Each structure stands twice: as structure tokens, then as C-alpha cells.
């Protein structure tokens, strides 16, 4: 495994996942969340738990990168984006279960589902573009 490229891919994936999450879940879906305010932590409480959000995104980016590196060692945007989509489907399944047990609105459910599909497909593509082991580069040269 090319650890230098792995690290760069991981950082790039984390940057995208975190930025996309902030825009999609934090800004665009803000209004939808306000329809069920009892489900969310108050602002101050959320602030004191913010480190969990960052930690979760770091772990997410790291293991997505690891999965892409193990699963598609040759890299490639398309294949890694497909893997990202498969991983997103795991999240979609979990969101559907959450919808059945928690009083979230269908707007939130589909916002989460579309967000996960875009987030992981693009993050997978980013990892695929950056992560190319030396062997494949040598083969191509």
C-alpha cells in the first residue's frame, strides 16, 4: 500500500465529507430539522459534542479510504465512486430503519439518503483519483 497517497486521499476525502456535510446537512437541511426541534441537541449542547462530529467524520473518511485502497488497489474514479455508492446504500438502509423508529419527517429521510449517496460517491471518486499505487503508475508508463 502506498501510505503517502493513502494519507493524501484520506485528507482529501475528509475535507470533502466534512465540507459537504456542513453545506448539505448543516445549511440546506436546517429548515427541515426545525420541524422536529425536540429531536436535536440545543445549540450549546451541540457545541460541547462537536468533537464527536469531527471524530465521526475522520473515522468515516479513513475507513472509506481504507476500503477503497483494499477493494480497488489500482484506484480509478469510477470504480471507487461505485464502491462509495454501495457504502452509501448501507447508510440508506440505516436511515430507513431510523425513519420507522424515530419521528423524523420524510423530508429529512430523503435529504439524508440523497446526501449520503452524493457524499460517498464523490468521496469515493476523489479517493480513486488520488490513490494510485506505484505499481499501476509504473505499468502505465
Amino acid at each position, binding site marked *: 500500500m502506498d501510505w503517502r497517497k493513502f494519507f493524501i486521499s484520506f485528507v482529501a476525502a475528509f475535507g470533502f465529507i466534512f465540507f459537504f456535510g456542513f453545506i448539505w446537512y448543516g445549511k440546506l437541511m436546517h429548515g427541515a430539522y426545525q420541524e422536529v426541534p425536540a429531536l436535536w441537541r440545543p445549540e450549546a449542547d451541540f457545541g460541547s459534542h462537536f468533537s464527536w462530529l469531527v471524530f465521526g467524520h475522520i473515522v*468515516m473518511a479513513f475507513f472509506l479510504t481504507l476500503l477503497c485502497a483494499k477493494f480497488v488497489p489500482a484506484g480509478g474514479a469510477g470504480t471507487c465512486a461505485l464502491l462509495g455508492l454501495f457504502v452509501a446504500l448501507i447508510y440508506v438502509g440505516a436511515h430507513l430503519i431510523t425513519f420507522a423508529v424515530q419521528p423524523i419527517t420524510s423530508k429529512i429521510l430523503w435529504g439524508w439518503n440523497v446526501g449520503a449517496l452524493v457524499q460517498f460517491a464523490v468521496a469515493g471518486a476523489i479517493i480513486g483519483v488520488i490513490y494510485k499505487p506505484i505499481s499501476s503508475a509504473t505499468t502505465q508508463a
Partner: protein
Amino acid sequence: MKRFVFAFFAAFIFIVLWGWFYNGVLLKDVFGEVQSLFRPREEMMGLFHWIIIGQAGLALSFVMIYASGFAGGGIAAGVRLGIMLEILAFSARCAFYATQPFPAKLLVLISIGGFIEMIVTGVIVGAIYKSAGARTS
């Protein structure tokens, strides 16, 4: 294709049974402590089909990923994939924990159940692929 379908159904049945036993029976009282975050029982029953569809989605995604890149590795590869996917699920749970007022105990208990679920699913899927592979070779 036959072993894909077989693996999917086996994984799906296990996930449904485990979900019912772990979340519905073992953790029933723990969920009861934060009842305000959940739908009333009757409402939940009315949406039960979404739980089944969601669990089918989990099983399908697992088998698709396994079949695409891990199928040669047998049970060990299934367990490895299960652990990696559960860590990814745990990372999302951390984000939910940051935004929803769940007690930390629930985060830990759900994650323990998730690890068991994904590891056993990996064993089931890996074993089915391995035995089918052994028969064809």
C-alpha cells in the same frame, strides 16, 4: 448469481432476527429511557415495512460489496468487510450522537450490537461463497 441470492437471503434473515432480538428485546428498557426520541409503538408498527426494507438494503449492500471485491477471501474476508462496514456505521453514529440527545450508553450498546451483527453477517456471507466456490471447483 445463485450464491449471491442465497447469501443475500441468509444475511437478510439473520439481520432481521438479530435486530429484533438485540434492539427489540435486549435493549428494550434502554430505549425506553429516551422514549421521547422515538415514535410511539403503534406508530412504529405502522411503519414496520420501512425497517424490513432498510434491513434488506443493508443485506443487499453487504453482499454486493463482498461479491465485488472480497469473494475470494472466504469467511475471513467476510469478517474483515463486516468490521470495516461497522466502523463506517459507527462513525455515522458518532455524528448522530453529536446532534441528537442520546445517552452515551445507547451509542455504546447499539455499536456493540452492530459489530456482532456485521461480523456474523460476514461469516454467513463468506461461508456461503466459500462452500459454493468449493462445490464448483
